[in-house]
């Protein structure tokens, strides 16, 4: 059987490649693209269309970072990850950053050795129930069957909440969001629990969204944000300040439409000048070109634009800004100054 093939060895010879030792940023510049871990498919946050183009709220962060580092929002490759594989993918260097609605928790930050660079969505765990069930509060859920997605913080929150309120429930763990919907819609569980944004996104796709209510209780804090590995502060800074640039752009009124014009020459507002690189040379301090933020904003828009385009009120998902409004509008979205 000499003719048997040896693709494995060939591939091994061909695909052994060096990974991030110290400088993720240099690696990315050298290989010419950013490798970004996203979810396997969550409406509005990350999903691929029929042509395999990824889009969504989390995906936009990846694209913004790619635009800031490489000047090209398309120079990014997406690795779909599950709840189980996401942290290993990041820890092992398979992806450069993770933008996969991941909750910032103490354990993940400290024990699992990751660096959360910020929060791009303030979320909380909520419940959705059919209107016909007549439930108005999570406290009424004694004995209910509840669908939860495994591999997330939600199942721990749920156990804690019901335990502290001393009510019983029947957990039904499901692996994916689409599975959860299937079970919920067919009545195999009474209540669906996940992050409130996910509930809204899910409800938006129902045939009759009006038949379902999201209960008022939010039982946990779920600050979702992009994360990178511990120990590469320079790279963490790049991702952190790209996210901040998107947020600052909205605050300062810089949009994808006017950014090229505003970035041509220095204007009256020094903070805009510093952000767009017409003054101060902030980009060089990050190890990027000075028009890094301009590129990012031009590619995906500012934070508000990303929000409106992917999950905002005019999309099928229809999320209002709520906690995710700018701090000037009573929300929590706030960036340290560009100075």
């Amino acid at each position, binding site marked *: *059987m000499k003719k048997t093939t040896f693709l494995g060895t060939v591939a091994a010879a061909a695909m052994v490649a060096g990974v991030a030792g110290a400088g993720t940023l240099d690696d990315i510049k050298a290989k010419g693209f950013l490798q970004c871990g996203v979810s396997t498919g969550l409406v509005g946050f990350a999903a691929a269309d029929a042509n395999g183009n990824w889009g969504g709220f989390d995906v936009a962060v990846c694209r913004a970072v790619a635009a800031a580092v490489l000047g090209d929002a398309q120079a990014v490759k997406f690795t779909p990850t599950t709840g189980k594989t996401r942290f290993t993918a990041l820890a092992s*260097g398979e992806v450069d950053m993770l933008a996969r609605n991941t909750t910032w928790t103490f354990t993940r930050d400290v024990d699992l050795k990751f660096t959360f660079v910020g929060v791009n969505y303030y979320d909380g765990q909520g419940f959705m129930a059919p209107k016909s069930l007549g439930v108005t509060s999570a406290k009424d859920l004694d004995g209910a069957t509840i669908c939860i997605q495994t591999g997330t913080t939600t199942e721990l929150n749920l156990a804690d909440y019901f335990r502290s309120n001393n009510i019983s429930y029947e957990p039904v763990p499901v692996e994916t969001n*689409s599975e959860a919907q299937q079970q919920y819609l067919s009545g195999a569980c009474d209540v669906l629990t996940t992050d409130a944004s996910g509930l809204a996104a899910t409800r938006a796709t129902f045939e009759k969204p009006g038949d379902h209510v999201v209960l008022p209780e939010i039982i946990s804090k779920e600050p979702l944000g992009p994360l990178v590995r511990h120990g590469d502060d320079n790279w963490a800074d790049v991702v952190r300040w790209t996210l901040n640039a998107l947020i600052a752009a909205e605050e300062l009124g810089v949009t994808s439409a006017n950014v090229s014009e505003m970035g041509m020459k220095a204007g009256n507002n020094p903070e805009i000048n510093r952000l767009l690189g017409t003054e101060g040379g902030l980009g060089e301090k990050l190890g990027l070109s000075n028009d890094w933020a301009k590129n990012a904003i031009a590619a995906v828009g500012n934070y508000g634009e990303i929000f409106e385009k992917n999950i905002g009120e005019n999309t099928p998902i229809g999320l209002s800004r709520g906690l995710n409004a700018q701090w000037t509008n009573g929300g929590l979205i706030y960036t340290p100054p560009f100075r």
Partner: protein
Amino acid sequence: MTKKVSYVRTEMLPEQTPPLTAAGPIAWMKTNLFSSISNSILTVAAIIALYFILSGLLPWIFHSSWAAGSLNECRDVIKEAYGPDASGACWAVIRERYLQLAYGFYPPFPGGEMNGFAPMEGASLPGYFRPNLTFILMLVALSPILFSALPRKMLWFSAIYPFLGFWLLWGGSVWVPVMAFMGFVLAGLAFQIIGKMFGSLFGVIAAFVVPVLWWIALSGYAADMMQSIVPVGLLPIESSQFGGFMLSIIIGITGIVVSLPIGVVLALGRQSDMVIVKALCVGFIEFIRGVPLITLLFVASVLLQYFLPADVTFDKILRVVIMVTIFAAAYMAEVIRGGLAALPIGQYEAADSLGLDYWKATRLITMPQALKISIPGIVSTFIGLFKDTTLVSVIALMDPIGLTNNIRGDANWNGIVWELFGFVGFVFFVFCFSMSRYSMYLERKLKTGH
């Protein structure tokens, strides 16, 4: 001469048609469907079951919509066409996504220049030219192995196909697979030369050591050098863009083909008299067969990275292929061991009496016969492995089942289940069923007994 009166009839009567109860459909039904009371009950029960299944399934399949942009649109179309209570299949999702289910996110028209690779193809070629060509060439490469009537010279193409197929699919410099192939050429040369000079054992050792040294130390540089002198290449395609049935076939075929030689070695090891070698082989085989594939895939996706030096990373598909190969090798070893055990002891004794040493006896006498006996087992191992490739969806690879999740993640197709599973199941059925028929054909052909 008196006139003879015959006491028996002298001419034949014309044949009569058998009575209706002994021939024709009624008789057939009587013997095959209603031969006894219990048989009649079974028949009626089967007819009722068949009716229920078909009456539920057929309207759903045919009261369907092929042209719609989303699930809701689909439902409206079906209600309009077949009445308000009708519920039918929304095949429109297959129509929109069948290319994705077949190829994943593989770019249909890879073109343009990147990293200095000269594009050898543009938008002028038909879509998915590279994977399609690879698939057709795979059939060509497999055909001399599958059908013994074809000329043996074609096996040379089979030998270089893996490298060609790899290059066509993943792209990049042509010199990488060429230099990898050189390793095998070197192995052959080393075996010939060193074997002649120092004896066959050293030849075997050299055939292992030389290519490994070549791959580790030199082949990368050689490939780079040749690329800089004669740049030939295709646009590289990332592993994360592979998906759909293409991915299943890549993993399945590579797994089975690579596992075959490993399985042969393991089977020989398990039959060996050497205690340590035997213990290692038995331990390996039983360990792999004792754990579910899914745990091995977890190892591939989560743990394998830890077992390698910090600066080495393997491509995700490659990691999965490695674990799948290890998995298949253990099963393959058992199949081949069965083949070896089925050989009459006289074959071994005859080889010994001819004065052949162990390797010659194995190579010339026992292994060819054992492999021949094992072919049906190998095919069924392959069918099992091909079906098991669906498990890679659990570790977020985009195989057909993984893609169904992704498609349902699209707001338009949220909540669609049966159509996708039905389609994927149907395609798997077509593949596996034809392979099992092929295996039965082989079994009949190879049957040399009476």
